[in-house]
C-alpha cells in the first residue's frame, strides 16, 4: 500500500465514511478490550458472528475486504498453528513428533486463538481503512481534546513517511554508485538505515520551520477549519460495539466457557 492511500483514502458516500473516526476508534477499543480478557471459542465466535453481519454494511467490497484484512488473517492462522503444535498439552494426545504435541486441549486453544485474533483484528481493520488521518486528527483534537500541537505535529510527520520509500531507493542506488555496495549486506543495511534516519530528521526540522512560519505553536487559541462532530450516528456505533461485546461475554459466561485471562 502506498503512503498516498494512507493519507487520502478513497472517500465514499456510505454512512461509514461519515462516522467520526473517534467513534470508530472507540468501537474497535470496546470490542478489543472485552475479548482480550478471555480465551474461549464461544465469546470470540459470538463476536465474530455479530461482526460478520455488520461488515455487510461497512462499504467495503468483498475483494477489498479480503485484501485489506489479509495481514490479520495470516497472523491469526500463524498464531493458531503455533498453539496447535506447541500449545499447553491437556486431554488426549492426537499426534506427537519431537516437541510437537497436538492434544484435545491444544486444539481447543488453537481454535479459540484463531477466532479471537479475527474477532479483534477484523473490525479494527475494517473501521480504519475508511479513516482519513486528517479527520482522525480533527476528531482527536476537537472531540477528545488532545493537545493540538501533538496531534497536528504527528499528522504533519505522517506525510513525510511517504517520502521514505523514495529516499530508501535513492540511498541504495547511491551506495552502488559510490562503490560500497558489494560487501556486507547487513552492515550496508544498518548504514543505510542510519542515513535514512538522518535524512528524515532533516526533513522533519524543515517541515517544523515551515509550520512555525505559518503560526503553528503560537499562543493564539487555534480555530478549526473543519468541524469534527460527534452525533447520533457516532453514539450508535459505540452502542453497537457495546452490544457485540456484552453479547459475546454473556453467552460465554452462561454456557460456562468464560475463562478469565487466557485460560489461566
Amino acid at each position, binding site marked *: 500500500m502506498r503512503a498516498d492511500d494512507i493519507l487520502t483514502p478513497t472517500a465514499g458516500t456510505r454512512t461509514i465514511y461519515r462516522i467520526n473516526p473517534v467513534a470508530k476508534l472507540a468501537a474497535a477499543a470496546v470490542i478489543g478490550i472485552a475479548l482480550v480478557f478471555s480465551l474461549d471459542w464461544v465469546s470470540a465466535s459470538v463476536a465474530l458472528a455479530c461482526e460478520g453481519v455488520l461488515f455487510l454494511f461497512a462499504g467495503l467490497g468483498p475483494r477489498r475486504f479480503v485484501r485489506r484484512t489479509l495481514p490479520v488473517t495470516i497472523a491469526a492462522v500463524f498464531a493458531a498453528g503455533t498453539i496447535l503444535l506447541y500449545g499447553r498439552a491437556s486431554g488426549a494426545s492426537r499426534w506427537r513428533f519431537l516437541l510437537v504435541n497436538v492434544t484435545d486441549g491444544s486444539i481447543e486453544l488453537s481454535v479459540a486463538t484463531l477466532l479471537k485474533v479475527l474477532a479483534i483484528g477484523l473490525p479494527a481493520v475494517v473501521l480504519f481503512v475508511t479513516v482519513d488521518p486528517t479527520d482522525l486528527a480533527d476528531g482527536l483534537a476537537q472531540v477528545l481534546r488532545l493537545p493540538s500541537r501533538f496531534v497536528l505535529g504527528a499528522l504533519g510527520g505522517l506525510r513525510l513517511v511517504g517520502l521514505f520509500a523514495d529516499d530508501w531507493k535513492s540511498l541504495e542506488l547511491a551506495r552502488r554508485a559510490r562503490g*560500497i555496495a558489494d560487501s556486507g549486506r547487513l552492515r550496508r543495511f544498518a548504514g543505510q538505515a542510519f542515513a535514512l534516519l538522518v535524512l528524515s530528521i532533516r526533513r522533519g526540522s524543515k517541515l517544523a520551520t515551515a509550520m512555525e512560519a505559518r*503560526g503553528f505553536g*503560537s499562543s493564539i487559541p487555534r480555530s478549526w477549519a473543519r468541524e469534527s462532530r460527534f452525533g447520533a450516528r457516532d453514539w450508535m456505533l459505540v452502542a453497537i460495539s457495546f452490544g457485540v461485546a456484552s453479547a459475546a461475554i454473556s453467552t460465554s459466561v452462561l454456557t460456562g466457557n468464560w475463562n478469565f485471562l487466557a485460560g489461566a
Partner: protein
Amino acid sequence: MFSETPLSIDARGWGWRHAGRAGWALRGLDLRIEPGERVLLLGASGAGKSTLVHALAGVLGGEEEGESEGRLFVDDTDAARARGRVGLVLQDPDSQVVLARVGDDVAFGCENMGVSRDEIWSRVEQSLRAVGLDVPLAHPTSALSGGQKQRLALAGVLAMRPGLLLLDEPTANLDPHGVIEVRDAVARVVEQSGSTLVVVEHRVDVWWPTVDRVVVLAPGGGVLADGTPDEVLRREGANLAASGVWVPGHPPKHPARLRRPGGTLLHTEALAVGRSTALQSDIDIVARAGECMALTGPNGVGKTTLGLTLGGLLPAIDGRLVAGALRRGLGTDPLRWKSRELVTRIGSVFQDPEHQFVSGTVAGELAVGARAIGLSEHETARRVDPLLERLRLGHLAAANPFTLSGGEKRRLSVATVLVTRPPLLVLDEPTFGQDSRTWAELVAFLAELLDEGSSLIAVTHDVHLVDALADAELRMWQADHALESRVP
C-alpha cells in the same frame, strides 16, 4: 481583497551567530525597508541572506539556537514576535506541504491564527485564485508538481494576510516553466495586496522586472550596494558579478573547448527507461570520449531516470545499454558490474547530494571511493588534495558534509566521484545552487575533464551550462524526445 497594511523593516546594527559557530552569519546590518517596497536581496553564498529572512519571519529560534545583537524590527515590534503578520515561503517544495488536501493545507495558517471558520474558507478560495492554483479543495497535495507546491505554499501564507512577504529562494528547485509560474503568481499577489516583498534568489534576471529595489549584502556584514535595479546594475554590476552574484548582462565566461571527440564509451539501442512503466522509449544515443551530452526538459519526463539507467544503476525497461571502450574486460551491461568495478568506469552524481554522503567529514567522504578500489593512503591523498583545492573545499576538509551550504554540497558530490577517475560522468544538475563564480570554476573544471578525454552526460535545467559545454542535447518532453547536435 488582501487588505493587510504593508509592514516596514528596520535593522539597526543587527547580527546573528548560530549556536556553536565561531563566526557571525551576519553582523552590523543597518537597513530600512519602507512599507510596500519590493526588494531583491542579493549577496554571494554565505552572506547571511537566508539568516536575515528567517529572522524576519521569527523562525530563527530562541537563545538556544544562537546569539543576536542589535535590533531587528518588523513594523514597530521585535521581529521575533512578528510571526503570523509575516509570511515565509522556503526553497524546498516537499517540506512545506503540511496537510494531505489542498484546501486544508491553505487553511492551516489561518487556523493557527484563530480565524473564524467561515472567514477561513473564503480566504482559502481567494488565495488559491490569487496564485492561480485551479484544483479542487480536496485535491491531494502529493499529486502536485513542484511549481504547484510552491504556489500552494504561497497561497497558505497569503491566506494569513501578511503585511510582509518573504521568499527564500522560492524557485531554486523548479524547472524553467515552474519558475515563471511562481514568479508570475508572486507578482500578481503583491500587485493586489500591496504588501512588502523581500525575495532572496540566485536567478536575478527572473525577478529583476518584479522588484523596485535591490539590496546586496556584504559577506561578513553590512550592505554592499543598495538602490533601484538599474542603478545597482550600472554602478556595481561588474563588481557584483566578480563577487559571485548573478547579474543580468554579466554572464560568467564560458571556457574554451578543444572539441576532439574520441571513441565510443557507451551507447544505447532502443532503450526504454522508467521505474515500473516506461517514461521514455526508443532512445538511441552515444557517449563519446571528449563529448558532453545534456539531457533537458520539464520535471517528470524521465531525465533523472535516464541518467540513473545510463549510470548502470537502474535496469532498462526495454532495449539495451551497451558499454564500449568503457568496459575494459567486463561484460557489456553496466548493470551487471560490481559496485567497485562501476566506480572506476562510470561516476554518477545524484540530484540530491545528501543521498550520496556516507562519511562524517568532507575528507572522509572523498576517501570512500579510493578505499573501495583499494588505493594506498599515499595515492588517495595524491588524488584527493588537488580536488579539494580545485573545488574550493580545502578549508572544509574536516567539516561534516551535511553542514555545508547547498552549493558546497553539490561541489563535494561532484568531487567524490572524480577520485576513482571514471571516464564517463553522469551528473544530475551539477551546477545547482552555485553562485556565478563557483559556477564558472566548476564549468571550467568540467571542460578540462572533457578535453582530457572524459565523457559527460548532464541532466540539467541550466541553459548556461548547455551553452557552455554541451556538444549534443537530448530534449525530452512527455513520453518523447529529440536529439540535437550543438556543435557550431
